[in-house]
């Protein structure tokens, strides 16, 4: 395909501005969050005192935790960008462009949109860094200079976002059949096996034993490192078992569904439990960590009352602050990911929604179904992961509940607010759905 044809194809069509704006905003949110998360973490790397390794180890754990929802959000942004051009892809094939040519056009457009979004994201990072810099650690604010990234880091993140967009566009193309007669999704049903549950139960049991053994030996940093390893392993297991749990839960809801929206919601989840998990999986990490680390912080509080030094007390306070920030970050990313995925789905199903409107199907039925298809897996994930973490740190969680209930309740409140934010994000795309229904 020559450059002139490519330029013609990449030019936005009149009236497409709002459709084009969505993926730009999505990539902007991704870029801002990545820059801000890395910026926050890097502020600890300048420290050199005896507690610095503890802060750095915990910051590394927080970074790992935030990677999962970030990748999910990045993928959602890329898919949204890819779907809006579906209609043009079949025309390209009809005009004789090869599949490789279609790939070039798709990747070029995705990278352009991502680039525009990344510029917006850098501005977003610049705008919110003063606020992030006000967060206190060790009794004083981090400061704008500590959390704002260097130009080199910004360029690296910018490049990473473009690579993510290009990669997701190519992967996205593998999921659709592009023929001269149209673009359609491949109709395979994704399946998940019960063996995932067996693996998960075994891994949680091993984690339980390790948690009991390791904290009694070695230094604080070594203990954190071991805990981080166990933590990472359990999270990996959650990723294995999560889709299976969602499938079982949705199958149960399907059997009991009497209302149309419940039937539809259960089927949406069952259509691809892995997709449902990808959307809310970030919450599994956040919820697991909330109980896991929340218990630790609560116990540190108790120890603080028994002759701990000022540094110990400050460390406990800072771990709680870091925990709350990581929770907020996770929920914001999941909320953004849900919003972007929903926008993408609505755009993808415009024709179907128009036909449902013709049939007289109420907008409310479809709207409730899609929201339920998000919130039901979200609640199952949040509660299931919290229970999983409670098993791993049992009986410490019980002790923490009795001795420092306020600390745990604060974290539970953050989780509850986070779930509320995700719920609110499902409403944000309602106008798009309404538009699809009204376009007779």
């Amino acid at each position, binding site marked *: 395909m020559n450059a002139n044809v490519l330029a013609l194809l990449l030019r936005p069509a009149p009236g497409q501005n709002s459709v084009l704006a969505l993926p730009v905003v999505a990539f902007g949110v991704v870029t801002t969050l990545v820059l801000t998360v890395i910026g926050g973490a890097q502020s600890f790397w300048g420290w050199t005192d005896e507690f610095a390794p503890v802060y750095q180890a915990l910051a590394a754990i927080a970074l790992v935790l935030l990677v999962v929802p970030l990748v999910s959000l990045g993928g959602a942004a890329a898919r949204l960008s890819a779907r809006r051009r579906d209609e043009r892809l079949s025309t390209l094939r009809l005009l004789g462009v090869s599949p490789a040519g279609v790939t070039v056009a798709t990747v070029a457009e995705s990278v352009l949109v991502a680039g525009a979004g990344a510029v917006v994201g850098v501005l977003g990072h610049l705008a919110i860094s003063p606020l992030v810099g006000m967060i206190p650690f060790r009794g004083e604010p981090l400061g704008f200079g500590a959390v704002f990234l260097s130009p080199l880091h910004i360029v690296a993140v910018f490049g990473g976002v473009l690579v993510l967009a290009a990669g997701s566009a190519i992967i996205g193309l593998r999921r659709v059949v592009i023929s001269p007669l149209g673009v359609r*999704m491949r*109709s395979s*049903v994704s399946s998940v096996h019960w063996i995932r549950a067996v693996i998960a139960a075994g891994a949680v049991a091993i984690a339980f034993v390790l948690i009991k053994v390791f904290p009694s030996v070695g230094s604080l940093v070594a203990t954190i490192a071991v805990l981080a390893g166990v933590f990472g392993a359990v999270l990996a297991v959650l990723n294995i078992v999560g889709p299976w749990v969602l499938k079982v839960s949705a199958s149960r809801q399907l059997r009991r*569904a*009497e*209302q*149309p929206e419940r*039937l*539809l919601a259960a*089927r*949406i989840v*069952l*259509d691809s439990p892995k997709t449902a998990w990808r959307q809310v999986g970030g919450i599994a990490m956040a919820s697991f960590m909330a109980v896991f680390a929340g218990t630790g912080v609560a116990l540190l509080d108790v120890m603080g009352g028994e002759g701990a030094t000022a540094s110990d007390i400050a460390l406990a306070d800072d771990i709680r602050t870091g925990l709350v920030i990581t929770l907020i970050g996770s929920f914001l990313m999941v909320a953004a990911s849900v919003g972007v995925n929903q926008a993408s789905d609505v755009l993808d199903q415009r*024709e*179907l929604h128009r*036909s*449902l*409107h*013709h*049939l*007289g*199907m*109420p907008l409310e*039925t479809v709207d409730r179904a899609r929201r339920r298809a998000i919130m039901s897996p979200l609640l199952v994930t949040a509660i299931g992961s919290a229970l999983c973490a409670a098993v791993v740190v049992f009986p410490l969680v019980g002790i923490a509940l009795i001795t420092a209930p306020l600390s745990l309740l604060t974290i539970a409140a953050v989780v509850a607010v986070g779930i509320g934010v995700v719920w609110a994000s499902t409403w944000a795309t309602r106008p798009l759905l309404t538009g699809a229904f009204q376009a*007779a």
Partner: protein
Amino acid sequence: MNIPVIEAHALSKNFGSTRALAGVDLAIHRGESVAIMGASGSGKTTLLHVLAGIISPDAGAVTFRPAEGAPVEVTALGESARSRLRRERFGFVFQQGLLIPELTAVENVALASMINGIRRQDAVQHAAAWLAALGLADMEERRIGELSGGQAQRVAIARAQATGAELVFADEPTGALDSHTSAEVMDALLWSTTGQGRTLVVVTHDPEVAARCTRTIAVRDGRIVSSAVAA
């Protein structure tokens, strides 16, 4: 066939500067199958949408006379009332079927009844009976992506009938099918509508489809230019 099941009077509709309907009068009787033909942009789909209450005309009136109950002036109804009318009294078949891909065949058909308040078990039983009657007895649990174009279209026909619609509107129902499948789908559509004493209004480009209807209306520049009853 003396009482029109639906009647249009002096319908006009403009989209910007384009005149889609220019004073259309039409009466369709119970048990009729009426083909609306015309070139692209002639106004035939707009006419179907106005008759079905999907869009409102700029001027004129559409009156629906159900078998039981008082006549309903479709054009005087608000959006939600028209949606309800379409949901409860009319059936629709589109060119691409446009079924919900996550649901199975039987669930797609049953969903329309469930929205109308029918219990799921009853709705599914009724839907399964319609699918069986249309030759899809062993395909109930298949997802839409696992069906051929003709099979998906028959599911759409079953969906249009499951709520007991007196009047079925079809927009190019065979437009995406080969001639053999097209004939099968028309068999199913006619059997399930006029074969059961119901009424069918079908927009089509295909003269073979029109030839199987009891009447063919030709539309040009937003006006009905001929109405021919089949011999």
